[in-house]
């Protein structure tokens, strides 16, 4: 090790020593622990309440009914009917647009012929 490397090494230790003194861990204020614990309990309680409210909203008979696949026919039929209605509306809209386009094309053809 050369003289300059040796002094650089010693300087490194000195800086580390100074850093250890300067960057001391900082104790959080007392109020922070209380605040954090309150927030965390509020979060867990809110999540638990949300789950229990959802479960309470359904009566026991509704829950039983939901578990029975025979009762799935009605919602499936409702979804099917909804889809059919949406499809019908779509067909009507396409027809209306093509009718208007045809009328537009006829009008411009008539204009050109004049």
């Amino acid at each position: 090790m050369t003289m300059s490397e040796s002094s650089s090494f010693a300087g490194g230790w000195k800086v580390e020593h100074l850093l250890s003194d300067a960057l001391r861990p900082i104790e959080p204020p007392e109020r922070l622990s209380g605040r954090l614990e309150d927030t965390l309990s509020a979060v867990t309680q809110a999540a638990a309440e949300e789950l229990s409210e959802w479960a309470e909203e359904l009566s026991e008979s509704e829950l039983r009914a939901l578990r029975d696949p025979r009762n799935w026919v009605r919602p499936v039929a409702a979804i099917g009917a909804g889809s059919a209605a949406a499809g019908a509306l779509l067909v009507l809209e396409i027809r209306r647009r093509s009718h208007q386009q045809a009328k537009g094309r006829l009008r411009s053809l008539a204009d050109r012929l004049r």
Partner: protein
Amino acid sequence: MSAQDNVEPASLDPEAKAELDRAFEDLYRAHLRDVYSYAYYRVGNPHDAEDLTEQAFLQAYRHFDRARRESDGRPLRPWLIRIAHNLASNYYRDRSRRPQTSLEESADPIPARHGTEAIAEGREKLREVIAHLDRLPDDRREALIMRFALGMDNREIARALGRSDGATKVLIHRAIKQLQEEMSDDDE
């Protein structure tokens, strides 16, 4: 990502959730000071440091189950500090600001127990090191905060910064060397 990865504490069965909450409480008690110290040295004032610490623990709680499963028994402190590190970065980005108070102004480097008249020169030296630390590039300063304020080893710092062990060793070495050179220049 499997469906299980998205499990939040509230959706676990009550027994598992109680066990998870106890483990989180242990983690929280063991590392509240680390997270707060890191936040304080990053943002430079106690008020924002408290907010950042609270946000870090809330986010940690949300992902604690998954982090514990993926840690394979390794300590979770680097993961916690990484959360605080990312939140601190977002804090500056969102508010387009640097610390309201620099390290130099905020951190009183002289703890009360050093309160003797013989310490005057040491006090000046500590202020000097803090002032130089404040001017280091972000990654070097953050690594030194983790090493000296939190006492983290190279491997922990590497995990917290998302770097390799080797790159972290080099980062810390260069940070100390830069500080040492700049302080030597000042002395001349």
